[in-house]
């Protein structure tokens, strides 16, 4: 492969947005007849690189060569003309039009301005059959077919634009196992036809199954390009998160003595699963225990949390708690069982910008009491003062508008809001994202001390160090599967990385 010339070569790509360096000095190349995986965590610059390549964003610096000659792509149309086609995560086709039309619209075969339907339908059927092994009725509206087939039609449309480079942006995220295999079969066929495929996914197993080569980005920078068989899974993960394993080993442990997991059972999830979001798993939470969820982005961490809170409906299994009738079917059920959920989306699902710190703190308590039993102003002030002191919220003024607080202090207000309802289980999804080191440590300490007083936690974080530091037990997720449960002496970075990387 390497004796060939690359069909696409990007050199020294820079892209700045106001205040952010999205890409700096990134190189990328694609050879004909290969599947090339682009890997990186959220914010690593994968999407930006693709948007630069497809002409959605313009390049600040750097060159793009197609088949040896420089091209400039400033619009999606230009990129298509140059032979670069993209299939996005969400199918960007018109569900109401027929399959054939979706492939040809804008380029229909015509005679004197009249669309030749027969010819179009025939061409579409042949194209789908010969290149994608797909034998379907092309005269039916696209919406009558499953997402997997819609995805294939999107690929057919892309191929029809005489593509040399095909970009597949997370094509597998809404497909089930069989559909993924069908897609991979087609990718292999296209590859053998000489097409260069750029494949973006965060499923490690899929990368190792289908790709020939991997390029890793981190924080908008180029980390390296590797052949798949020369890069172990664990190295891939370490390069993506930018850590050395031996540095992780030297972490100071906050809770040296692990709680034994034989305490009183709080909740048991058995065979809990939801198609397209998480494979069935078992997980037991005990009283006073911090259970950490570790895994890469998109591995199903938030999905587990949402199932426990009843925010998503499981289609298999259920949650039981000893001594309480019925399961958890809605957030209402969860709140009745004293479960609180602090979402990762602080801005959109958490704080209310234009209310004061006091108002934000009492919100959940007031909601749980019903709006007719208002909390007196005196009591509100007491509660606000108490928690401002407890959590060390700065500035310590309950009448301050929350939007003027720093991220860390906003997070503390949110924690205070849920603590006030005295939950038995508090689910924290990325509670320390984007906040400074000091506030991070305070939140971690608070979690530990509350758990010693008997409160249980489900703790989700992208930072492995943090999960290790606060958890009594860690459930590791990979590719929407709970792959391992680690506790006690096994809780070390090496063990967890191994489980995250798998294989």
């Amino acid at each position, binding site marked *: 492969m390497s004796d060939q010339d690359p069909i696409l070569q990007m050199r020294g790509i820079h892209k700045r947005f106001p205040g952010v360096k999205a890409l700096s000095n990134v190189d990328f190349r694609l050879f004909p007849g290969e599947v090339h995986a682009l890997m990186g965590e959220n914010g690593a610059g994968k999407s930006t690189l693709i948007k630069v390549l497809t002409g959605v964003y313009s390049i600040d610096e750097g060159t793009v060569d197609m088949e040896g000659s420089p091209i400039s792509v400033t619009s*999606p*149309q230009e990129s*298509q003309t140059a032979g670069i086609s993209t299939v*996005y995560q969400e199918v*960007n*086709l*018109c*569900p*109401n*039009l027929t399959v054939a*039309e979706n492939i040809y*619209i*804008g380029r*229909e075969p*015509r005679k004197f*301005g*009249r*669309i030749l*339907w027969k010819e179009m339908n025939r061409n579409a059927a042949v194209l789908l059959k010969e290149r994608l092994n797909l034998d*379907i009725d092309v*005269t*039916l*509206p696209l*919406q*009558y*077919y*499953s997402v997997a*087939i819609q995805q294939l039609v999107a690929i057919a*449309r892309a191929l029809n634009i005489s593509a040399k480079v095909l970009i597949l942006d997370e094509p597998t995220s809404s497909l089930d196992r069989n559909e993924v295999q069908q897609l991979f079969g087609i990718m292999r066929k296209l590859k053998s036809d000489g097409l260069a495929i750029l494949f973006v996914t965060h499923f490690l197993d899929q990368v190792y199954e289908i790709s020939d080569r991997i390029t890793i980005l981190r924080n908008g920078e180029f980390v390296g390009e590797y052949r798949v068989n020369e890069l172990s899974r664990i190295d891939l993960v370490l390069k993506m998160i930018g850590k050395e394993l031996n540095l992780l080993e030297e972490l100071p442990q906050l809770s040296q003595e692990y709680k034994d997991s034989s305490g009183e059972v709080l909740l048991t999830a058995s065979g809990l699963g939801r198609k397209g979001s998480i494979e069935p798993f078992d997980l037991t939470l005990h009283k006073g225990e911090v259970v950490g969820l570790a895994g890469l982005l998109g591995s199903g961490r938030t999905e587990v949390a949402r199932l426990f809170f009843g925010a998503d409906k499981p289609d298999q299994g259920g949650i039981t708690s000893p001594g309480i009738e019925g399961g958890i079917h809605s957030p209402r059920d969860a709140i009745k069982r004293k479960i609180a959920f602090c979402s990762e989306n602080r801005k959109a699902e958490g704080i209310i910008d234009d209310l004061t710190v006091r108002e934000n703190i009492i919100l959940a308590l007031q909601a749980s009491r019903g709006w007719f039993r208002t909390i007196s102003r005196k009591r509100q002030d007491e509660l606000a003062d108490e928690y401002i002191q407890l959590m060390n919220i700065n500035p310590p003024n309950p009448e301050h508008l929350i939007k003027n607080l720093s991220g860390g202090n906003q997070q503390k207000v949110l924690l205070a809001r849920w603590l006030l309802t005295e939950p038995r289980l508090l689910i924290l999804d990325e509670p320390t994202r984007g906040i400074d080191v000091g506030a991070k440590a305070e939140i971690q300490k608070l979690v530990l001390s509350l758990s010693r007083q008997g409160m249980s936690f489900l703790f989700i974080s992208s930072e492995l160090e943090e999960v290790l530091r606060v958890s009594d037990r860690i459930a590791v997720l990979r590719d929407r599967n709970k792959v391992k449960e680690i506790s006690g002496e096994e809780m070390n970075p090496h063990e967890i990385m191994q489980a995250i990387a798998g294989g």
Partner: protein
Amino acid sequence: MSVNRKFIPILVTFGLFVVMFAAGSFRYTGFFSLQVLMNLLVDNAFLLITAVGMSFVILSGGIDLSVGSIIALTTMVSASLVQQQGWPPAVVIPLVLVMGSVFGYGMGAIIHYFKIQPFIVTLAGMFLARGLCYVISIDTITIDNAFYTSVAQTKIHLPGGSFVSISVIIALVVIAAAIYIAHYTRFGRNVYALGGSEQSALLMGLPVAKTKILVYTLSGFCSALAGVVFTFYMLSGYGLHAVGLELDTIAAVVIGGTLLTGGVGYVIGTFFGVMIQGIIQTIISFEGTLSSWWTKIVIGLLLFFFILLQRLLIARRSTLKL
């Protein structure tokens, strides 16, 4: 699957029309005649033309509330120029058609470039056009121009002793052209794509701006043409002509099986939607004792029925993925 499922709503519309015509024929003597059918066309020619324009607008995912007012303005401008200024109809008719198109173009441009809801833009257009009628005159202007009266009185005789008016020919030509445009031109297919998903249409590289503006231009043109036909029919211009017609038009399009969310429907469905409204009126006038408001009641019930039918078909479809 013997019948393609996408044709179900239109078959229901057609079936309903046949059932209503059969029921009328059994119940009332003289109902079962070609002339009753032809009168449906004669009396609703202007509604047919307006509804064709509206079909394109709704298929594209929009709505046009200004159509009734543009009809009124067209009758007013025509009557004023022909009757009071003495302009020849050969100048006046093209002029009002251009006026309606420009009016629609303006609304389309505002909707697209300022990203404003079509509902509110065409609502403004509706008030504006209706108001402009009264700038010309607050009274009815009766037309006795020779060209207009002769067009109004011309009967085109058909075999079997029945007849239609010139307006019917115009309406049928418009419908035939609209079916061709909708299914055999890129503009037509782009309208469907736009109604299916504007975001996708954009990413597929389709000319979204051009299509959207052209849709409202077409609706403006159709309304003005309907206004011309309406002038033949009423032989007058008046600011209160065609009040509430936009709602009748929307009802006809929906009863014709077009989805209000856009992207799904057929021009021929709209044709039968108008015919169903016409036949309800005919049945009620044959009945003799019923108030004409019963038309509204039946249309209201039919609308509910069709909206529910569409909802059921969508629900069923999602469980029937292949």
